[in-house]
């Protein structure tokens, strides 16, 4: 965190100054470790084993927060008789369809509920719930739950308040994690048992009524074939310890760029609409009604999804959206499969995808299997790159590695490449949304130089010109574009659209055009328009609430007059859980919100994330729906059952409980189960440029004996577009390097500041060598493991140059999020510079041959 979020790390230092203990778990010793109380190096790719070990410690020593678990989690809920755990099936769950590499989660459901398929790999639930229409789609839906879980079907789940029923979630959890012993953690992760015990003691002693523990993570957890389950493992632990919905608790996703949170709230993702409303899949005869029936929950705030969606459609299409035409629901595109960034690359190679916009993204360096990215772009008709500098993704056609090797020649590439300079955040108005869901407005400081323009300017004027060109068209295909409300006021000599007008549209208006104050005002009859329901209220009273900057000393410690947080400016989600079932704070020390019986309402330091006047004793009447159906103790108001999910019956594609699987490419076998890898990992085709490696004890796996992981340095930013061209930053880390231990350097003859060549089945790169104790060897499976650290900022362009670490990566993805496994893979490393020209690919082919790699390697279930 100090390494990649130094500004945010000041608050960790503040916490430390107040007595907090900081534990840093990371394969390498970083700037964070240097300031931590405890550094725990572990093998990259083994975190579920590590976290599962802590869960086991908590459960087997009865250190969980029992009152919290019983009241607020699904721990007491009894599962159906058909469920089989990994304990029963040696590493897989019931419902595995081996042929299609997917789970049918019908057997994962609660006892007493209707059988319910998940919003999973295939949206099979659509058929069941609508009784018509056949799904032709295939795409993950995990991200659709960015603000609450999936639906679970009709009925009341069976509960056992004593949590002793053998099929209750709590008991299933106990059995599932029983094998995650300290000995196992030591063997799998390389974390000595006494060090592991220290972590367990620190975490558990600092959790309970009086104390809370927070977890912060970044892409070190997400970029795995089991990335979502990493976060889930932390969620299980935090729920058991009662650390969710309470001050000082939570699981904090540290984002990789400013406003990455914003880019999922108002998504740049293919499978989401604003506010985590799922993008409709292609079905025959699908209308608004059947879509809402399939997607909306019966209980909780997602029960009002129709109001959110209709208001969104009204924001998009204004007067053209009427009750008679389903509010232009048919104007929305439909998914016909997964259209993630990696599928898009394959579609480029197949000639299906012909045009590509890159807004501040540099896939020729920053995406996994960078070579495949360039080959895909070389097959386009046109490519638009908007960035600050001539990044590699804009120049691969004249100076990329494939030009050097002779595989591509400039005159044969027919892609027309447009480079359009972009304005920086200081050169435009706008908002950033951070990990706490906090929107903070930034004001333009200077005009952008030369031809540089904001993304808002580019998008608005592109849309305006496209609409002018389509004007008068009678082709129904053009209606969605022509019907759009595209009337933003512009200002200044550059005709810059007013960013606040966009914010006002996102906030929403009532029928008279007045700004809305809360999503609870949204209607499903077309009388309200709102661009993103969770952001409703950010422009309440016609005031840009995100631009508020009341100093901390002038308000209470929650400081909710600084910026604005969704939903409804609540700073801690699910904060009803900060009080006990009777509505009293769990402790004075950790008081946040509580029930004021005299006034008959919830009150406190934060804005209560709960229906304001609902008493703790409230039981919903039969047949109640949406928010009305929440009982007085259903603290998790976005969840379909109002509970925090220790166990996920619905909504994840790869299992209801986090389970340790080895990474796609791993030098080790899975010690916990016979199942080596996540059986439903999203495996892109094994193309010649995307070969997978043998793992564990398979022949050839020791050709790639070292675990590698990629990461960032404080001095640079992601794929380097914002930093490698800056002399003041480039000089601080002037060259691509790899980090290795003195032991590995001795083993492979690597010289400090000399050159090393690093090889995988996909590519070969060279890097200067930093020999350092900060990359400690670990004892894993009883033998010494060396890890290779690879900062991924570099590419051949810019002021500071180097090879791109992403040349080494494969395209095995997390099945929920389609995120690549850049944080744990296997490589070989040798001294000296890499071969040039065609010899480079020849070396990779020689390695493949030595390891016996073909198109089937690593594609086993």
């Amino acid at each position: 965190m100090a390494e990649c979020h130094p500004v945010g790390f000041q608050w960790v230092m503040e916490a430390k100054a107040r007595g907090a203990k900081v534990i840093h778990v990371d394969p390498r010793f970083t700037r964070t470790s240097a300031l931590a109380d405890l550094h725990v190096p572990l093998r990259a790719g083994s975190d579920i084993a590590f976290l599962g070990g802590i869960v086991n410690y908590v459960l087997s020593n009865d250190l969980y927060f029992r009152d919290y678990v019983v009241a607020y989690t699904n721990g007491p809920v009894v599962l159906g008789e058909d469920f089989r755990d990994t304990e029963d099936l040696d590493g897989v769950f019931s419902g595995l369809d081996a042929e299609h590499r997917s789970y049918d989660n019908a057997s994962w459901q609660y006892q007493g509920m209707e059988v319910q398929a998940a919003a999973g790999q295939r949206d099979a639930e659509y058929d069941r719930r609508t009784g018509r229409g056949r799904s032709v789609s295939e795409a993950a839906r995990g991200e659709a739950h960015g603000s609450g879980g999936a639906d679970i079907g009709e009925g009341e789940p069976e509960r056992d308040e004593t949590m002793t029923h053998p099929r209750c979630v709590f008991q299933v959890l106990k059995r599932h994690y029983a094998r995650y012993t300290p000995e196992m953690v030591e063997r799998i992760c390389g974390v000595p048992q006494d060090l592991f015990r220290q972590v367990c003691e620190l975490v558990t002693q600092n959790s309970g009524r009086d104390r809370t523990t927070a977890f912060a993570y970044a892409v070190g957890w997400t970029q795995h074939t089991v990335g979502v389950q990493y976060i889930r493992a932390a969620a299980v632990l935090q729920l058991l310890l009662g650390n969710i919905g309470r001050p000082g608790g939570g699981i904090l996703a540290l984002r990789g760029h400013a406003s990455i949170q914003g880019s999922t709230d108002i998504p740049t993702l293919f499978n989401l609409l604003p506010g985590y409303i799922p993008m409709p899949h292609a079905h025959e005869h699908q209308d608004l009604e059947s879509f809402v029936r399939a997607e909306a929950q019966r209980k909780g705030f997602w029960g009002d999804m129709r109001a959110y969606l209709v208001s969104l459609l009204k924001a998009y299409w204004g007067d053209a959206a009427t009750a008679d035409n389903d509010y232009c629901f048919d104007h929305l595109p439909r998914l016909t499969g997964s259209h993630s960034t990696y599928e898009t690359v394959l579609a480029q190679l197949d000639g299906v995808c012909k045009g590509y916009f890159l807004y501040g993204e540099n896939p020729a360096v920053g995406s996994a299997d960078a070579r495949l990215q360039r080959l895909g772009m070389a097959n386009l008709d046109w490519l638009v790159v908007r960035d600050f500098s001539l990044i590699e993704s804009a120049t691969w056609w004249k100076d990329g590695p494939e030009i050097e090797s002779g595989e591509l020649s400039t005159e044969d590439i027919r892609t027309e490449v447009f480079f359009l300079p972009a304005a920086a955040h200081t050169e435009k108005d706008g908002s950033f949304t951070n990990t706490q869901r906090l929107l903070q407005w930034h004001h333009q400081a200077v005009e952008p130089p030369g031809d540089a323009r904001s993304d808002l300017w580019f998008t608005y004027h592109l849309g305006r010109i496209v609409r002018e060109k389509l004007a008068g068209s009678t082709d129904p295909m053009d209606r969605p574009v022509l019907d759009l409300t595209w009337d933003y006021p512009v200002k200044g000599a550059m005709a810059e659209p007013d960013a606040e007008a966009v914010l006002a549209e996102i906030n929403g208006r009532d029928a008279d055009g007045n700004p809305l104050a809360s999503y609870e005002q949204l209607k499903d009859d077309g009388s309200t328009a709102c661009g993103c329901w969770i952001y409703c209220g950010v422009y309440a009273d016609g005031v840009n609430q995100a631009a508020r900057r009341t100093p901390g000393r002038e308000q209470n410690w929650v400081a909710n007059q600084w910026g604005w947080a969704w939903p409804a400016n609540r700073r801690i989600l699910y904060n009803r859980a900060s009080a006990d079932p009777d509505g009293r704070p769990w402790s004075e020390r950790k008081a946040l919100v509580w029930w004021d019986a005299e006034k008959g309402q919830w009150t406190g330091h934060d804005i209560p994330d709960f229906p304001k006047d609902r008493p703790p004793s409230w039981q919903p009447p039969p047949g109640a729906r949406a928010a009305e159906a929440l009982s007085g103790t259903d603290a998790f108001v976005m969840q379909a059952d109002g509970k925090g999910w220790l166990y996920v019956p619905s909504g994840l594609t790869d299992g209801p409980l986090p389970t340790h699987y080895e990474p796609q490419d791993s030098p080790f076998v899975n010690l916990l189960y016979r199942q080596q890898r996540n059986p439903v990992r999203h495996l892109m085709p094994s193309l010649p440029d995307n070969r997978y490696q043998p793992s564990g004890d398979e022949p050839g796996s020791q050709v790639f004996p070292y675990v590698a992981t990629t990461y960032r340095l404080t001095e640079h930013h992601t794929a380097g577009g914002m930093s490698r061209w800056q002399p003041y930053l480039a000089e601080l880390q002037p060259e691509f390097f790899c980090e290795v231990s003195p032991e590995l350097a001795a083993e492979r003859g690597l010289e400090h500041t000399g050159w090393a060549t690093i090889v995988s089945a996909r590519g070969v790169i060279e890097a200067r060598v930093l020999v350092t104790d900060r990359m400690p060897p670990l004892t894993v499976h009883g033998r010494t493991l060396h890890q290779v650290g690879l900062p991924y900022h570099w590419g051949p362009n810019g002021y500071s140059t180097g090879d791109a670490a992403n040349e080494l990566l494969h395209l095995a993805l997390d099945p929920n999020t389609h995120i690549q496994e850049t944080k744990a893979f296997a490589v070989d490393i040798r001294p000296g510079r890499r071969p040039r020209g065609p010899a480079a690919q020849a070396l990779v082919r020689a390695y493949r041959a030595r390891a016996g790699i073909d198109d089937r390697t690593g594609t086993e279930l």
Partner: protein
Amino acid sequence: MNDGERTAAGPAGGAPPDTHRSLPHGPRADVARAAGHRDPPPRMGFFTDTSVCIGCKACEVACKEWNGVPEHGLELTGMSYDNTQGLGANSWRHVAFVEQRKPLGGQEPGVAHAGPDVFKAARALGTSPGAGTPAPETAPAGAPAGEIPPVAPGGRTELRWLMSSDVCKHCTQAACLDVCPTGALFRTEFGTVVLQEDVCNGCGYCVPACPYGVVGRREGDGRAWKCTLCYDRLGAGLEPACAKACPTDSIQFGPLEELRERAAARVAQLHAAGVRDARLYGESPEDGVGGDGAFFLLLDEPEVYGLPPDPVVTTRDLPAMWKQAALAAVSLAALGVAGFVRRPR
């Protein structure tokens, strides 16, 4: 820097102050007044608490951005994450990175925070049922506290990574001032030592005069350059760029007397927490340069960070040397005269 000349003229008029001379030796010298500034503001300086430095180098970049300092060149040094290597004409802040096989620890923060005390604030709200939120120091029993013994993975010795942001010391007795023949270097009303690039003739005397090796001559320019403690910002009531950019308050800017008090308390706090290595560097007016206007809290010997253990103002012995030389000259002259006097006729 033209501001310097304005200041040198003195706000109250009258005889121009002699801002270009170092000071008589002695503790707690009022440097600005001694340099001729009438009613100067308190002496300002830096306290760099390296125990909370996270090595982000924001100070280096902020300094260069504000002062227009050129890049120092692309060189991967292999000295941990330190590719700046040292202070010089093109690096006015320098973050050192020292990897040591020593137990982790000694990085406890605990700086006095000007920000709100959330616990106190919560208590003051009075809306909390019951007595309010107790202060953190009254945490209930069972809370983890005290030392965390380091455990070495794989039998490896423990690791410690020291980071420290170095800067011009703005000495009480500044040899660079003494040797500057042009008056380019001068003492400001804030007690800081500033080099005016438009007066500097590039003689380079100040470079070897500095006991810390701070000043450097810029290639292709020839003139000497160093930290100005953001004299232009100070005049406008702003803190220096590096201190402003520091996310963890490792670089603290303020009146030197206040910083010294804060530093003493911080060392005491660290000692009480068992961090016996903590010590101040450049804080004592008794040292060889009369104390630094920019001083440090270190967690190891100064040499570990590349700092001289016992810096001495290089012009300290000049008066004595001149005295000796004068004596020698007089003796020689006397001998010569005596030779004539006693010459036998």
